[in-house]
């Protein structure tokens, strides 16, 4: 599963992209967040305020309840500020 981080999430985690293989039971974007938070203090800091983090699954906006599977691209980022 490809996971992407943008803006301050990228800075806190220390990379923009990684491939992960979460354990059985991680079936939604929210469960992926909970698992990622166990992987180190950078992840914990990035996901500390869950409401501040937006989720996209396969380049479409999702929520913590959006199902995820092995070949998906899951992205985490702050509220957007372009334009």
């Amino acid at each position: 599963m490809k996971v992407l981080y943008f803006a301050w999430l990228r800075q806190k985690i220390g990379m923009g992209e990684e491939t992960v293989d979460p354990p059985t039971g991680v079936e939604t974007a929210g469960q992926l967040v909970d698992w990622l938070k166990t992987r180190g203090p950078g992840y914990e800091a990035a996901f500390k305020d869950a409401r501040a983090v937006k989720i996209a699954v396969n380049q479409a906006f999702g929520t913590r309840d959006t199902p995820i599977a092995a070949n998906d691209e899951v992205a985490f980022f702050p509220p957007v500020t372009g334009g």
Partner: protein
Amino acid sequence: MTVRVQQEDFDIGAELSALTDGNTGIGGLCSFTGLVRDMNDGSGVGAMTLEHYPGMTERMLEEIEEEAHRRWPLDATLIIHRYGRMEPGDRIVMVAAASAHRQAAFDACNFLMDWLKTKAPFWKAEELPGGETRWVEARDSDEHAADRWREENEV
């Protein structure tokens, strides 16, 4: 319908001509250009860098454009959004909508900007005078502007 995400600056006049040339059914053309301001929330800003999510950005901009065409009778639309480092006065984004009817062009152009502001995955980092950078925070006012265009059957 055109969407472009690029580092380079763009030429507003050339883009608008390309959009309308040869279509004499167009009566009105509305465009909006967003520029880097030298002030944001009271502190002087030297420059900024725009990060985006390649792939999703184009998808979201195309969806927003399609939605505008669904809602208004439009002859042509354009969205160009830059990424990378920009200085005060630089152009960041332009959107345009052309229609037989003046108000459709105005409303669609306003809609494109309001939705882009809350739905297109771009993030601004400002360079402060001291050399630090600061991620720009999203504004409630942008959410409210986008909500004006929400249809009743949407969640």
